[in-house]
């Protein structure tokens, strides 16, 4: 009888602790599943942006802007390959060229669409709504190419609107720029 009584106490204790462990395990597993679900949602949202860049308004804008540079390839090559006495002379020539080819309202509209798209994606990552790794894998190359090509236009906007933060998020996110490129 004493053995049975002792076993009953131990059995109750083990039962209780096993129950507690089961609850803790279930809670931890649920938490991990929730975190993974959040990550999956972020990745899916990022891939939606990728699809939009391939087939939406941003795609048309990007294509127009790239086509513009392709059409002016020879003139662009002449400016960039020319020997200059100073860097400021190179920058002055390049700035003037880009501002001249972006003077039409249609091209300015395309630039606004393209830059706004990339900046919107950067904000999505900043707010932890999109996955940073996916976004940077798909968008960094194109964002850098676009910004490096048309940065004189961005500088002119900042000067015109007296606002140094125009497309600054795009610049910081994709290009890791720390200084002021428009100075």
């Amino acid at each position, binding site marked *: 009888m004493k053995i049975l009584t002792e076993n009953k106490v131990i059995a109750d204790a083990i039962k209780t602790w096993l129950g507690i462990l089961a609850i803790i*395990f279930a809670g931890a597993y649920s938490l991990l599943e929730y975190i993974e679900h959040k990550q999956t949602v972020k990745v899916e949202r990022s891939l939606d942006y990728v699809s939009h860049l391939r087939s939406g308004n941003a795609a048309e804008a990007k294509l127009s802007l*790239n086509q513009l540079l392709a059409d002016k390839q020879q003139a662009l090559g002449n400016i960039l390959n020319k020997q200059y006495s100073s860097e400021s002379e190179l920058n002055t020539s390049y700035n003037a060229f880009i501002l001249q080819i972006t003077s039409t309202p249609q091209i300015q509209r395309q630039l606004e669409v393209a830059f706004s798209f990339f900046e919107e994606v950067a904000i999505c990552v900043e707010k932890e709504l999109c996955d940073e790794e996916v976004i940077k894998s798909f968008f960094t190359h194109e964002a*850098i*190419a676009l910004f490096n090509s048309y940065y004189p236009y961005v500088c002119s906007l900042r000067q015109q609107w007296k606002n140094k933060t125009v497309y600054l998020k795009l610049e910081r996110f994709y290009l890791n720029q720390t200084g002021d490129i428009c100075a």
Partner: protein
Amino acid sequence: MTLKEPVFIAIISLVLLAAGCSMVTKPSKPQQKNTPHAMPQTKQVDRGFDPCLLNSKLAVCGNNENSNRK
């Protein structure tokens, strides 16, 4: 009550819990929604042009840690 019953019940519960969790279907990789089966054929003009590749002395290329030059 002996030691066997509650331990047995607890083990069965854990086994059932583990079995239930493993039956929850979840994609191992994120599923791509609305992925076009035929991706637009990329041409040179689709990929963009980086002037820093031709001349790295432009103002924008100087502090650019993520330049396409790398």
